[in-house]
């Protein structure tokens, strides 16, 4: 763990100094404790004034120890802040290059925590965990070693006790963790079943099966109860082990000292002093026990950061020979299967999109339309075949460079917390007001801006929550148009069916589409019919490609789809046997 921290901090000198200070702090602590031996022997010898010089030494040791501690705090804080900054930057660097499929729901949570809380936790850990832990470990060892100069059997007993106590601590923690894990396992099943019961309550009740009977719940409840009882096996040792071990150690040390006294090796005063030191020797272990949980959570935090830093990245290949007259976007026999899926999402797809053309991707849900868009933006790498932009494989572009080739508008446009202007300016940070206004007009955003009381300065809320779906799409479109990339990837909204001016937007898009290539996942019939080329997908395969009118005339798959869609829009709710 320490090694990983040092790697994260990156500053070898600072960490070496920190480790030295840690050791020095422990030396002073141990020295203070050992000073008690002459001090107390003096006090109990009948001539208490003899203790005074030793009191002076004790005070000096503790005060110097404080100075070391103060330095230690400062250096811990510096290193912590450094880790905080480097960890965040490096995590971001990595996230910009991972394949998007790597970032599943669980990893997303991990990555978020690595970005937001990990740095702070590590920074705090430096001050409140690493230092006390190191002290708790080093101080007893040094005290034990120091005792050898006074009474070696006692030193031997103390040093023998160290692994015993640490072992008890470790076992105690392991048992507690096992108890927690067992509890979580036992409860998770029941919890999942109960949540299921709640989520499906309407369907279950409609089916007359709302109660616990007839579901797997009864069994899960009984199993949970039995498992909770079995926790005893872990819980009791987890709770008692360390306490028992430390009390036994105390008894053993006291008996050793008493035996040394009885055989005359030690004076009465020395015996008493040594018992006090023995108790002091045991004290740091308790700290260890108190911190164990926090340490394991810090280890989790560090693992989380390292987990992201070790994530796979999309490789950058060499592909230096772009054809002069290459189409803007070309899919060449492209296949892609999601992890764990039983069939490819995209299967042997080939088509090209030329400058000035609009290609509509059409097909039933689940036919692979969105995957095509993701592959064009290289959010994943293809399993077979090549996606080319301007004749060069997307795999040969550096991510930053690739981003310059395309603009994208997703169905659920993601907006960032900030103003409307900020969000559109993401398209081109240095755009002037005229460019901004022009993009807004073309995207139909101008009337939204005019309607909002704060206009361009309206805050869009988290994820753009203060805007409607249609409004968000227009912001996304304005952002894409402002970017003015040679390739525009669009996923048309399905939800905002009643917004009439969507059409105006489509028209505006078409009129300015001449100098770029547009690929649109089209749901609306008028968008489909207005495209130059339709790529009709089914089950990840291209069924038909061609001009929409020609395909309708041909009477194939697309024509059938077209007819159904036409019919659906005129549907009346009437019972039909």
């Amino acid at each position: 763990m320490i090694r990983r921290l040092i790697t994260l901090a990156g500053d070898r000198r600072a960490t070496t100094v920190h480790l030295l200070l840690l050791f020095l702090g422990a030396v002073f602590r141990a020295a203070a404790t050992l000073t008690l031996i002459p001090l107390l022997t003096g006090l109990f010898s009948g001539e208490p004034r003899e203790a005074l010089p030793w009191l002076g030494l004790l005070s000096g040791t503790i005060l110097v120890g404080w100075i070391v501690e103060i330095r230690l705090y400062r250096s811990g804080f510096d290193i912590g802040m450094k880790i905080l900054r480097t960890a965040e930057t490096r995590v971001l660097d990595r996230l910009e290059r991972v394949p998007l499929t790597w970032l599943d729901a669980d990893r997303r949570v991990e990555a978020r925590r690595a970005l937001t809380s990990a740095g702070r936790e590590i920074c705090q850990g430096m001050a409140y965990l690493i230092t006390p832990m190191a002290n708790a470990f080093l101080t007893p060892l040094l005290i034990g070693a120091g005792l050898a100069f006074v009474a070696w059997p006692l030193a031997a007993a103390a040093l023998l006790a160290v692994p015993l106590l640490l072992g008890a601590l470790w076992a105690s923690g392991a048992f507690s963790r096992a108890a927690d894990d067992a509890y979580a396992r036992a409860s998770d099943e029941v919890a999942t079943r109960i949540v299921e019961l709640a989520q499906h309550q309407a369907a279950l009740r409609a089916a007359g099966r709302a109660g616990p009977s007839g579901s797997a719940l009864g069994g899960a409840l009984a199993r949970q109860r039995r498992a909770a009882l079995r926790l005893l096996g872990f819980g009791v040792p987890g709770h008692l082990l360390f306490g028992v071990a430390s009390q036994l150690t105390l008894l053993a040390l006291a008996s050793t000292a008493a035996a040394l006294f009885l055989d005359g090796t030690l004076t009465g005063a020395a015996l008493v002093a040594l018992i006090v030191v023995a108790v002091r020797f045991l004290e740091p272990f308790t700290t260890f026990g108190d911190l164990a949980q926090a340490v394991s959570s810090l280890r989790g935090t560090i693992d989380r950061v390292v987990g992201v830093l070790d994530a796979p990245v999309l490789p950058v290949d060499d592909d230096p020979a772009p054809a002069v007259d290459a189409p803007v976007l070309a899919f060449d026999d492209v296949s892609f299967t999601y992890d764990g899926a039983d069939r490819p999402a995209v299967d042997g797809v080939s088509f090209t999109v030329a400058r000035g053309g609009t290609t509509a991707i059409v097909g039933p849900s689940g036919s692979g339309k969105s995957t095509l868009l993701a592959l064009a933006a290289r959010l994943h790498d293809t399993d077979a075949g090549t996606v080319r932009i301007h004749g060069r494989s997307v795999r040969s572009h550096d991510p930053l460079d690739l981003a310059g080739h395309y603009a994208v508008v997703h169905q659920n446009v993601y907006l960032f917390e900030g103003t409307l202007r900020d969000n559109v300016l993401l398209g081109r940070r240095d755009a002037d007001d005229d460019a901004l206004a022009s993009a807004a007009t073309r995207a139909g955003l101008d009337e939204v801006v005019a309607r909002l009381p704060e206009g361009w300065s309206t805050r869009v809320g988290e994820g753009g929550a203060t805007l409607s779906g249609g409004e968000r799409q227009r912001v996304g479109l304005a952002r894409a148009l402002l970017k003015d990339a040679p390739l525009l990837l669009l996923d048309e909204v399905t939800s905002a069916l009643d917004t009439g001016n969507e059409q105006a937007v489509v028209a505006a898009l078409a009129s300015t589409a001449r100098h770029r290539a547009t690929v649109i996942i089209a749901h609306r019939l008028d968008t489909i019919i207005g495209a130059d080329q339709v790529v009709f997908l089914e089950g990840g395969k291209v069924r038909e490609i061609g001009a929409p009118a020609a395909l309708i005339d041909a009477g194939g798959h697309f024509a059938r789809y077209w007819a159904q869609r036409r019919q659906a829009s005129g549907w009346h709710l009437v019972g039909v046997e």
Partner: protein
Amino acid sequence: MARGFQGAMLKALGAGDHVLEVLSVEDLTRHYRRIVFSAPTLFDRPFETAGYLRLWVPDAAKPGRHHQRGYTIVAPDEAAGTITLEFAMHASGPAVTWAASVEPGERITASRYGSTKFAVGDPVPDGYVLIGDTAAIPALNSVLAVLPDDVPVEVLLERSHDDDVDIPMTPHPGMRVTWVPQTGDPAALADALGERDWSNWYAWVTAESAATRRVRGRLKEFGFPRSEIHAQAYWMRGRAMGTKHDAETPAVPSPRTEAIPAETPKPREGWRSRAGSTLLAPLKGRLILAGAVQAVVSLLQLAPFVVLVELCRRVLSGDADERALRGLGLLALVLFLSGTVLALLLITAMHVLDARFGHEVRTAIVAKLPRLPLGWFTERSSGRVKQAVADDAANLHYLVTHAVLDVVAAVVTPLAVLGYLFAVEPLLATVLLIPLAVFGILTARMVSASSAAIPAAVEWTARAGSEAIAYLDGLPVVRAYDLGPGGRLRATLEKHAAFLEGWQRPLLGRRTATDLVTRPSTSLLVIAAAGTGLVIAGVMSPVDLLPFLLLGVTFSTQLLAIGYGLGSLREAVAAARRIGLVLTEPELAAEDTPGVLPAVGGGRSVRFASVSFAYKPGHPVVSDVDIELRPGTVTALVGPSGAGKSTLAALLARFHDVTAGAITIDGTDLRALSTEELYATVGFVFQQVSVLDASVRDNIALARPGATDAEIEAAARAALIHERVERLPDGYDTVLGRAARLSGGEEQRLQIARAILADPKVLVLDEATAFADPESEFQVQRALSRLIAGRTVLVIAHRLHTVTDADAIAVLDGGRLVQYGTHPELVARPGLYRELWTAAGATREQEAHA
């Protein structure tokens, strides 16, 4: 400036002084003065609702002396740097005397340290009763400003002058203000409070001290739990130097009046906030017992140290032969063993208790779910169930198996040590407390120094968190627009780091100091130095130093550990409350002897008779609706969004019970039917589909587990899903969920197949189902057409043109039925329907063009 002990304490704790300059003085009534101050330095941290300021008011009689008086901060204006304070001028006292003669330009000092904070409860109480006198009005006004509009508010105020009623109050739609004349009788306010079902109300009482006490007593009689009363005396009669606001009026006994009238006493529902303690009630006795046993265990664990002290005593006094020492060793061993055995038994008992209690809680939740109205099961309440059975249950588990024992141990051990040490040598024991006092002062100063930045810190954390979520959710967008060193999140994280550093670095010294002062080595130094001194001075014998060296060194650390345990205890109590809240949710009324519908061959008829429904009393969503659905007909509900269409339809599927009126099927009230009978008759198809983690076959046959394969396949064919099922890896045996997913439209058709197989006579349908997935709209529509044939159908219509052929159309507006008829009839006459039809025309034309 002489401010006495209080002032010194505040200063020690780090409360800074602020200088307020009077800008203007205005009398709102003859006895109510509003003073606006310029106070730019006050805005270093945000103001709490009903928060107050400690004003240092000069004593007119004794120059140089100051009195502390609390005044609620009104209308803080950060841009202008001004605040307002309001003074009730019907009393004598230093603040009133000062306010009476103050002129613009004068200055006064004030501190901000500790304050009242008002927050609306979660869940929101059923009502708020606010009680006080004119001095309470500024605080009441800020409370009123944050109360939700739909909550009833009773305000009960005592007036000392007739024109007090003219003091402006924050308007609130649910507020009723009652004034009672001030007579000097401290019971006047309490007497004005009538008995009724105050269940789930919250009381805010800020009046004169004796009156506050009386009101609190009366509220307790009504059953108010302590947590639902905020009672704070604002001033004390007969004490001009009282603690807060000042007033003095002669006492005149008053006749008993009930100004907030009593209502016919209903059986009391009780308070939701009690839900937690009710849940824990059966455990309470045993937890207390466990705590007591743990206290004994903790003492036994200290015993070896006492034995050690005794051993040392004997050694030093010279009467320590081998036998004596062996005896002591044996004693220590016996104590140790009995402590361990007792601890073992205790933990075993707690685990057994935990297993049983955990099981009971889970069983209770499972038994509760089927009794709740279906409408309760929203995404939010599913979250509550999840929270209750996962995190909250784990918290309770921790409470029973660990937290109680840990807290008792953490409290008993240092207290026993302290008692022991005081018994041995009180002087040295007192010295041992010095580091703790220093720690207290340092911590308070640090908190006060860092608290200014806490709101900013919270905001930074929230901002970094939400931007990180946005970054990860929007990674495809980020890749296209926001890569590299100029990225937004990078900038935010860097600014966040800079903020953290700028905030924490200056505190580093103090933080180090607070930590060092409680270190065992510090205690060791204190004990060794003071002890050696005392021994040399002959005040204490060296042997008495031993208990301090053995037990006193870690005393500070142990004492501070109490705080951690208490945190988890509080969390467990909150968890118990959340679970309790789920368990006390109102249930559907259940009939003891459920009715049975007469068997009929054809369809069933449904009647909505004067149906009203409200989620919250006084806010009807559906009002007095009468509709009849004739057997085998389609009735469409149309109207603007928010008109109550979905709610009315959901009532027929008994998602909620009507608040007034009745829904009957063939003359029998819905509520009289058993759940099985009801849902065998009424089916529903809504946009939200429940797909169970089960095979396709089981999913379709949910309502008829005994259905044959042929029947299931027939239903699937009718719902146009059969072919898709055949294409699944294991056909009808495919388990839906992670392995095989259906698209939105396919799930809809699965749901329709389920309904076809269940074959209910009455069907509630959301038309949005038909166009939720544009790509399979056509199939879903055809499946729906087959499903509704021959049934009595109530459909929520979003697109008017789909229901033009319906047998009847019911037009709703604001929860009321405004028009009823067929499409041709409704289009022919002016009204809401025709307006909606015309407005929809434009869209329809566009679609027709396509």
